């Protein structure tokens, strides 16, 4: 029988095949939610979906796209925003 804490779905289960050909269950923490665009709420590309301790060890360039509003807005929304900015300039 699993422990009481393992009966809820707070931890995700990983099935591991042992050398003795038995499958055991390992419990891991769940990944954080996917990052979404602040404007249109679509999923952002180029942003890692990992636990904070893994993200903290990554280089800065691996964490978000290298463009203005990278990691906040999607590319389409950034384009629209910058287009408006260019058109409003005299």
């Amino acid at each position: 029988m699993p422990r009481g804490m393992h009966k809820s779905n707070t931890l995700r289960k990983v099935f591991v095949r042992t050398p003795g050909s038995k499958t055991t269950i390992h419990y891991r923490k769940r990944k954080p939610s996917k990052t979404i665009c602040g404007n249109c709420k679509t999923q952002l590309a180029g942003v890692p979906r990992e636990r904070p301790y893994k993200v903290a060890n990554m280089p800065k360039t691996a964490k978000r796209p290298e463009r203005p509003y990278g990691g906040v807005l999607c590319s389409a929304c950034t384009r629209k925003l910058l287009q408006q900015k260019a058109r409003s300039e005299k």
Partner: protein
Amino acid sequence: MSLFEVGRLAMKIAGRDAGRKCVVVETIDNNFVTIDGDVRRKKVNIKHLEPLTETIDIKDKASHDEVKKAFEKLGLPVWDKKSKKPTERPKQIRKKNKSKVEEKPAKKEKKAEKKKAAEPVKEKAEPSIEKAVETETKKE
């Protein structure tokens, strides 16, 4: 007849130079132009550009220096290539050697002090002998 003639100011919309201003330096075909200014000088698709109302008088295929002069007149920033100079790594000094180096001169100093202490005695003794010799020769 597209908007992107030579000398047209534009803003980059896509890529890592997005939001920066540039000038069309050369038109390649209906879709592609070469840009320079506050961006990396490169060939881009005109879909990645948003034209601005202004135009500058520059030559076709103008060099980066010419574009730089024109941009400085307008008071716009210019993207310059950063020179790739490798930074010197700080040399690591071994701690053991350092302690030895520190200890050795201290010992030498002590020896030197001892020598100094010993030498003056000789010095005092020697002149007396010399004087004695001198006095002897005089007597002779």
